[in-house]
């Protein structure tokens, strides 16, 4: 651990990784809270995996993979969202299809791009140690956008998440707000991909918020606590992985998962204790 702290002082790539973790935790705290309370984790997982299609295509065309990820994520969110509004009963089938077809497209495109096959692993599982200053800038812009829009329309987003029918009756554009929420979740997925990769994104999006939800009583506080937990998990995972040279993304998720299990056990004990 001391080794990590010393290296953090001298190694720019580690400083970048540290900053990336902090930037990611803001997004995962704010949007992860919505994903957890609105129970759309499966949907967010579908978006995350479909992103590989966009990244593969971008690589094939020789443009920025993260740009491709952004386009694919927003497109997947809108397709899933619009279909689920029109025909809710087909939602999970559609998510499953987009999930797998997106990945298949990505694999095909990457296989046809000479010399890029090694990148596949870093998309799937993240490579926080390879974060560039350009990535950090994009992450900061995405965070800023998330915080401003959620801050401005917090009341409306809270209302549609809590009781869609009532919001509609009050005249709120409930469908539009739902699609907007999905697009914000899609942007967050892209924000997190650099850190843990698209397969593990769903854990970083849900676990900090789920732990926070066990101990807080309002959406705002849940977002705050989830962001702090996200920062603890990314930084802690990075530090734990550094010495033994473990994959950072996977270590971050294992740390988050362990804390979630411990928190769940404590929470259920406390409830049982109160009852007896």
């Amino acid at each position: 651990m001391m080794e990590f702290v010393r290296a953090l002082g001298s190694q720019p790539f580690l400083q970048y990784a540290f900053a990336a973790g902090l930037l990611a935790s803001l997004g995962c705290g704010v949007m992860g809270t919505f994903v957890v309370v609105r129970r759309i984790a499966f949907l967010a997982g579908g978006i995350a995996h479909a992103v590989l299609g966009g990244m593969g295509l971008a690589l094939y065309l020789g443009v920025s993979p993260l740009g491709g990820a952004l386009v694919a994520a927003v497109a997947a969110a809108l397709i899933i969202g619009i279909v689920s509004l029109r025909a809710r009963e087909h939602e999970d089938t559609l998510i499953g299809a987009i999930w797998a077809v997106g990945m298949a497209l990505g694999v095909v495109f990457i296989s046809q791009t000479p010399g890029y096959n090694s990148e596949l692993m870093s998309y799937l599982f993240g490579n926080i140690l390879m974060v560039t200053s350009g990535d950090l800038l994009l992450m900061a812009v995405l965070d800023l956008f998330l915080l401003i829009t959620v801050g401005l329309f917090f009341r409306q987003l809270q209302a549609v998440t809590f009781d869609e029918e009532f919001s509609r009756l009050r005249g709120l554009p409930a469908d539009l707000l739902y699609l907007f929420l999905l697009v914000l979740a899609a942007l967050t997925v892209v924000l997190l991909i650099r850190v843990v990769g698209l397969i593990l994104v769903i854990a970083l999006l849900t676990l900090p918020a789920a732990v926070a939800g066990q101990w807080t009583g309002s959406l705002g506080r849940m977002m705050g606590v989830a962001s702090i937990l996200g920062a603890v998990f990314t930084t802690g995972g990075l530090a734990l992985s550094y010495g033994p040279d473990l994959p950072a993304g996977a270590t971050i998720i294992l740390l988050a998962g362990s804390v979630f299990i411990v928190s769940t056990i404590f929470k259920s004990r406390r409830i049982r204790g109160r009852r007896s």
Partner: protein
Amino acid sequence: MKPVEISKLHFSYGGLPVLEDVNLEVGEGEFLGLVGPNGGGKSTLLKLVLGLLAPDSGKLRVFGENPKKSRRRIGYVPQFSEFRRDFPISVHDVVLMGRLSGRMRPGPYSAADRRAAVTAMKGSRVLDLKDRRLAELSGGQLQRVLIARALATNPDMLLLDEPTASIDSSIEESIFELLRDLNKRMTIMLVSHDVGFISRYVTRVACLNRGLVCHSTSELSAKGLEDIYGSPVQLIDHHSHLPTEAPE
């Protein structure tokens, strides 16, 4: 302008007729109880009045307008048995939702919104629960909170869907007392499964089983109910037979 005017209304769902030739008028200041068997179309009729569904044919006017236009004048209290109780939100924040409007104004609630929410919470006697989490409320308390949220919209009519399903009977009675008070200020239309009990509080009962037959409370008879339910029904006033339970 009558709060609700319905004539020759038909509605079907997936080819199955749910409502057939329904005629109903609700006058200003009325307290209408809508009863009938499960699947008889009670909740569907409420959703039509709210403009959440559109009729296949017939006339439906709410405060003289298309239901979609007039829905902002209605305070809706949904079936709370379907409610997500584990949502991290306080009573105060739930009631404040009644102050939202389609204008999508950014930023926090205004001071006027907060005052209106406090008045609404006083009106349904939940002000002392203001800072409680939703998950900590009993069924009866949650029901009062949902009524407060509807009151915060400053409605001309309250619409309630099974407000006392799965609440125990002494609390049910206190909810109806509250509604009777509110009825002095606004029209109320409520759906209930409990025929005998609501007749003590409402000004008129309408029985719905695809078609609609209306009674005033005094006419509510076993014979009329038999026509609607299709089998003999006993009118039982639960509350004069049961020992009163301790209030909440």
